[in-house]
């Protein structure tokens, strides 16, 4: 007998059913995402408050565009595979689920190392230093906070992938996969606003080291 059928057969009216539980879990996760948004909005607000001057208006540091564009594409691709994994498990397509989850984690890692090694310049020499006043402080705060969420997301994806490999999720009952997908897409959503704020919006100002 499946867990879902068992839930219906011996349902205690004082306890929520599985679907009611998932509904509450889903609401809780969205409230969590909303509360996280205040932090990210604060960082965005800091960026637009500090990165401006009386002559040019909104400004930004003159950073390399192509790597940031490529890593943004990589993060978008990871979201695509996460969506594919969620659809696959809802259809009991375990092969697609497994490889899509692994691809999502791999692309997340590429993005993370792209930010840390290329954007933070650990590999090629820093393009923008932490000590570069408001530019450095805001850039490292925003990318660092986002990178922390990427690390958490990758860990979550690997846990859910491993559980899925063991057959813990079914087409009817896969809340953990949905939760993992919502969190990962949320990380992508934050970058959708961070990428233009850091690299595209405003007049580019040359940094002199």
């Amino acid at each position: 007998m499946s867990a879902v059928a068992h839930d219906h057969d011996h349902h205690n009216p004082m306890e929520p059913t599985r679907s009611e539980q998932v509904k509450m879990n889903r609401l809780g996760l969205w409230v969590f995402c909303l509360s996280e948004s205040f932090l990210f909005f604060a960082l965005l607000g800091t960026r637009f408050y500090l990165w401006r001057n009386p002559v040019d208006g909104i400004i930004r540091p003159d950073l390399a565009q192509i790597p940031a564009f490529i890593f943004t594409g990589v993060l978008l691709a990871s979201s695509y595979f996460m969506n594919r994994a969620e659809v696959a498990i809802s259809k009991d397509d375990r092969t697609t689920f497994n490889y899509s989850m692994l691809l999502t984690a791999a692309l997340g890692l590429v993005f993370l190392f792209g930010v840390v090694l290329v954007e933070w310049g650990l590999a090629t020499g820093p393009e923008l230093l932490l000590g570069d006043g408001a530019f450095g402080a805001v850039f490292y705060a925003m990318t660092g906070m986002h990178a922390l969420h990427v690390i958490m997301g990758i860990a979550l994806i690997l846990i859910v992938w491993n559980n899925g490999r063991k057959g813990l999720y079914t087409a009817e009952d896969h809340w953990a996969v949905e939760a993992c997908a919502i969190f990962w897409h949320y990380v992508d959503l934050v970058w959708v606003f961070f990428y233009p704020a850091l690299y595209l919006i405003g007049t580019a100002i040359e940094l002199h080291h």
Partner: protein
Amino acid sequence: MSEPTKSGSIYRRGNTAAFWLVVITVIELILALTFESAILLILLSIGKAGIILQVFMNISRLWNPEEHH
């Protein structure tokens, strides 16, 4: 026969969303390098966020929990 077709259309929905996200990102880059319009870039970001919220995060499941893939 209808189930694989439905499944295929759901995969297609994700493909279409990903395609538009990439297209908008390319437009963003071109706009930033040519026009430097902050308002347009913010509007494009909001458009991308809408696609992610609706197609990938399925925000409508909050008020329509029966909605499946």
